[in-house]
């Protein structure tokens, strides 16, 4: 049993807003759902599967009701919550459900407003008493990964900076990007230190917004007008300190989710023409590229340097929308936008300045949670048909 080729991403929509003081979170979910349906050429009453994560206010009960999903049709629901990579997992789970005949038109939504409202607190886990006082945040948890990666492999701040430089080269062509200015390695190194060794420009933006996609059967996708893009491989995995034995913060759960996805797809990193890689921080990208096998562990610094991630310049064009580092990071969750830009590339709908030629196979990969504490990873490999 495989999901290879069993599900197509038939509709995508990214909310253009980056700042939404005049909208509600539920409203943003509805707007992105509407956008994805219109892109696919389907209607709300076609939806028989709905996938959402922790950003959707109240979860499935209120959201299905608020959106007015058709109760007689809706037959598959999933609220898997793994932070920023939830939507990559949703894509895999939607494909599983479609392959099993449990639904035929799945909607996945992400939306929220961390810039203009308080984020709901995360429920405490069993570790709370043993960790909460120490003030782990995204910045310092990823900082700890970068610090150890530098210690073990000689990775430098200059190398990390190249990741931001590449993202900024792409963002200049995205009219919706929050940060459109092209920056240099020196700009990154001269930006204020936030949590050693990560500078301000090593960090992603904080933005309101959202995105949605429609996942459907091959038959329905082929009856629609959009270029065909299908999922051919998916993997998911979890990593945490696991009792503190053999702690190693230089790799992520991507070392497991990646091979699972590649094996299912029957392709290797060499076959990937475009890569959407979660870029909560520059170190996130570097570690993921190693973990996915684009280079050996420890050689990520050399791999990302000198523009190797810039479309039209380097060997592995990445995050051609500007990514989380420059364009947006809706609800502090980057998984959805990673899929959306990969689909644009496969459709040939990316900005002409960053469109990858003959883009037939792309990867969308992300992590969720804190790389330096406990996190999930999910890898999706997509193919133009």
């Amino acid at each position, binding site marked *: 049993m495989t999901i290879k080729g069993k599900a197509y991403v038939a509709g995508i929509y990214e909310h253009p807003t980056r700042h939404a003081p005049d909208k509600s979170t539920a409203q943003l979910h509805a707007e992105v759902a509407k956008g994805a349906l219109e892109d696919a050429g389907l209607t709300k009453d076609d939806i028989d599967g709905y996938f959402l994560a922790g950003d959707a206010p109240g979860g499935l009960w209120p959201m299905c009701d608020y959106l007015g999903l058709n109760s007689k049709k809706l037959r598959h629901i999933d609220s898997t919550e793994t932070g920023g990579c939830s939507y990559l997992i949703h894509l895999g789970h939607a494909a599983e459900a479609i392959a099993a005949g449990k639904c035929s038109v799945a909607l996945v939504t992400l939306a929220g407003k961390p810039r203009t409202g308080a984020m709901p607190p995360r429920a405490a886990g069993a570790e709370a008493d043993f960790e909460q006082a120490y*003030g*782990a945040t995204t910045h310092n948890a990823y900082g700890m990964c970068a610090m150890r990666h530098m210690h073990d492999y000689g990775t430098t701040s200059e190398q990390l900076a190249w990741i931001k430089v590449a993202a900024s080269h792409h963002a200049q062509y995205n009219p919706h990007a929050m940060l459109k200015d092209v920056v240099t390695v020196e700009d990154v190194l001269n930006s204020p230190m936030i949590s050693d060794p990560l500078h301000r420009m090593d960090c992603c933006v904080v933005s309101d917004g959202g995105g949605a996609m429609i996942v459907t059967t091959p038959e329905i996708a082929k009856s629609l007008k959009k270029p065909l893009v299908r999922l051919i491989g998916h993997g998911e995995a979890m990593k945490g300190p696991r009792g*503190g034995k053999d702690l190693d913060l230089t790799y992520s759960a991507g070392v497991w989710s990646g091979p699972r996805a590649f094996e299912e797809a029957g392709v290797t990193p060499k076959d990937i023409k475009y890569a959407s890689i979660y870029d909560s921080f520059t170190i996130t990208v570097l570690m993921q590229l190693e973990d996915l096998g684009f280079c050996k562990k420890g050689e990520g610094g050399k791999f990302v340097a000198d523009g190797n991630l810039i479309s039209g310049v380097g060997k592995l064009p990445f995050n051609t929308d500007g990514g989380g580092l420059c364009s947006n990071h809706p609800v502090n969750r980057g998984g959805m936008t990673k899929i959306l830009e990969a689909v644009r590339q496969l459709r040939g709908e990316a900005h002409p300045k960053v469109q990858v030629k003959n883009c037939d196979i792309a990867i969308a990969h992300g992590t969720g949670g804190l790389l330096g*504490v406990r996190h999930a990873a999910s890898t999706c490999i997509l193919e133009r048909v």
Partner: protein
Amino acid sequence: MAEAKKYNAPVTNPETAPFWEAAKSGKFMIKRCTACGEPHYFPRSICPFCFSDKTVWEEASGEGTIYTYSLMRKSPTGPYAIAYVTLKEGPSVQTNIVDCDLTSLKIGQKVKVVFKPTDGAPLPFFTVA
């Protein structure tokens, strides 16, 4: 220097209460599985390695080395160093390095446990040994 940072008291629960009781007398406890022999932290009643329920409390030396750290500079309560310390007994624990020069910390540096008061049980931190 600002006043000493205030920490919330641990909530505690039946599974972890012995850890916090021991902390009140300055003891830093870990759990060890008598079935597979592995120590772990934070404490569980069932071993996260072999899933045996034959786990026992053990007082750790409180000595360890810095596995990694990051000096968090953007904080309303002032800079702080978050870290993982690998205990002499084996497990690595998340903590803060405190009461020393935070700008000269090094991976591999020797550290030792110190407890900081709360309104409830004290919390373990580490400082340069």
